[in-house]
């Protein structure tokens, strides 16, 4: 995080392999911890809020580390690190790592797939907001005719907009499939209709609609550029800020 601030101040002109290495080290430690926890629980560790959040973080870093193999995408880390730091602090909030005790029915493979897909979709949305942040930075520098725009290692803004769009679309597809599997998993409970007004279900529907709106706005009404980037960031901020609260209020997810 501190090194990212340094890179931001330097206009991304420095080689940011240090940032990449630090994220790689963190990823290694995180993976080890997840494996140990998975063996202890005997299932994929994505069944409470803490685990889901850290899994989303893990998937976000994994995508970055693959992208960062190409030096011209390595600067992505300078933008991803503050987002990861924010999510990490959120994951450490009290009561998120609830005991794996009483649950509504036995977690099935579908439950794990649902949770994993949801976490991956939030990871994709997170990365799209990171790319959107890069877009806004570069667009700002170009608009104000700053020399940083020419000397930074950021890619062209048109390419960044495409990256934001594709990550958003990928996240939306994952979210849709995750929600469909979640609905199927719910239908197997004894009284599925009792959970129709569950805050988490309503919230998930709202998130789905927000991202659908963004996608339609871009492809149907050509609202790309700055507005689209702000939309991607705003939507993800909404997800991060409300994820915990709706989870706490949900009898289905927090019995």
């Amino acid at each position, binding site marked *: 995080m501190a090194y990212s601030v340094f890179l931001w101040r330097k206009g991304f002109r420095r080689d940011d392999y240090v940032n990449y290495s630090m994220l790689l080290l963190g990823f290694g430690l995180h993976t080890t911890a997840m494996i140990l926890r998975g063996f202890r629980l005997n299932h994929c560790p994505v069944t409470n809020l803490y685990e889901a959040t850290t899994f989303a973080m893990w998937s976000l870093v994994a995508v970055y580390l693959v992208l960062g193999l190409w030096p011209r995408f390595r600067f992505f880390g300078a933008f991803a690190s503050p987002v990861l730091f924010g999510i990490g602090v959120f994951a450490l909030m009290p009561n998120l790592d609830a005991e794996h005790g009483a649950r509504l029915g036995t977690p099935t493979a579908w439950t794990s797939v649902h949770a994993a897909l949801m976490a991956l979709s939030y990871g994709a949305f997170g990365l799209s907001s990171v790319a959107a942040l890069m877009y806004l930075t570069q667009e700002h520098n170009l*608009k104000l005719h700053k*020399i940083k725009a020419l000397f930074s290692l950021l890619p*062209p803004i048109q390419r960044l907009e495409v990256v934001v769009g594709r990550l958003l679309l990928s996240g939306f597809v994952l979210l849709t499939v995750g929600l469909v599997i979640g609905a199927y998993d719910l239908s197997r409970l004894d009284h599925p209709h009792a959970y129709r007004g569950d805050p988490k279900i309503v919230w998930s529907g709202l998130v789905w609609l927000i991202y659908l709106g963004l996608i339609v706005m871009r492809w149907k009404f050509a609202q790309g550029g700055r507005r689209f980037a702000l939309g991607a960031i705003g939507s993800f901020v909404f997800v991060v800020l409300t994820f915990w609260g709706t989870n706490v209020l949900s009898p289905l997810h927090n019995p």
Partner: protein
Amino acid sequence: MALVVLGLSHHSSPVTIRERFAFAEARVPAALEVLRSSRVVEEAVILSTCNRVEIYAVTSLAPPVAFDSLREFLVTCHNYSDPLTDELYKLSEPQSVYHLFKVACGLDSMVLGETEILGQLKKAYDLALQHGHTGARLNKAFQRAFNVAKHIRTETNIQRGSVSIGSVAVELAEKIFSRLGDRAVMVIGAGDTSEKTARALLSRGVRSIIVTNRSHAKAVVLAQQLGGRAIQFDEWAKEFQNIDIVISSTSAPHYILDRVKLEPVMKLRRNRPLLLIDIAVPRDIEPEINFMENVFLYNIDDLQTIADDYLKQRKQEVARCEQIIREKAAAVLGRPGPPPSSGEVSPAFGGR
């Protein structure tokens, strides 16, 4: 008889003032005629580019008297009535000769070492020569200036690398568009700088070029040279929706593109990014347009920021060039050359 220079450039004044003092090429012979008939100067050349307006003159008057008259001529010629502080500068020998050599070599240009200015200087000199406004003094000074520029180009590295407006335009385009190979360029106004900018973009593989100019014949010639297509000047707005990069350098006295015109076009282009490079003085494109989403407007002054960095990188070469220029200037003047640039340009008048 002394060679004097009075003028304003991107160093001393913003584009908003320079554009008010600019001479259209067609007006220059008549202006020179008026200047010489005033008997203030015996010989004169007017150089008017997007970055500078300068009068090079040979006078038998004392330089302070000549400067007052030249300033009055410049102000009257353009009906300029606003206050002037440090915008105009005055140079007498030996600084005037030294300055002429620096201008010819591109050392005084916005983009250090650029070569367009040499062509513009030759053109200004030829125009004065054809109309009989030069004599032995200016002929010798300008011929030497052209020789020095050639010498500098071959003997130093000052003109190597990305130092032209065209190259800077390419760099900007590469920071906006994913691939230049898919881009369409429109050149409005078939000037020298716009041609070079278009060539720089072509060398990076832009898809197509459309040229338009008030004189359609000129547009056709340039379009043929660039391998593009010429259109009538009143049709350029119709083609705009397919264009990604615009290079504008007309001599129109008003904006040819404003926000009201561009907004509906941006809707038709589905808000794809648009790079506008306005190298005209007076400006062709309303500055307000830069506030529009997905539109990136750069005028001639905006490129200054980019040029500054090149300036730093080439400081070593500048020192070498200045040494050569000092030696050559001393040979022309028959005495030691002026000291390095400190105090070379002085403001002409304290206020008006």
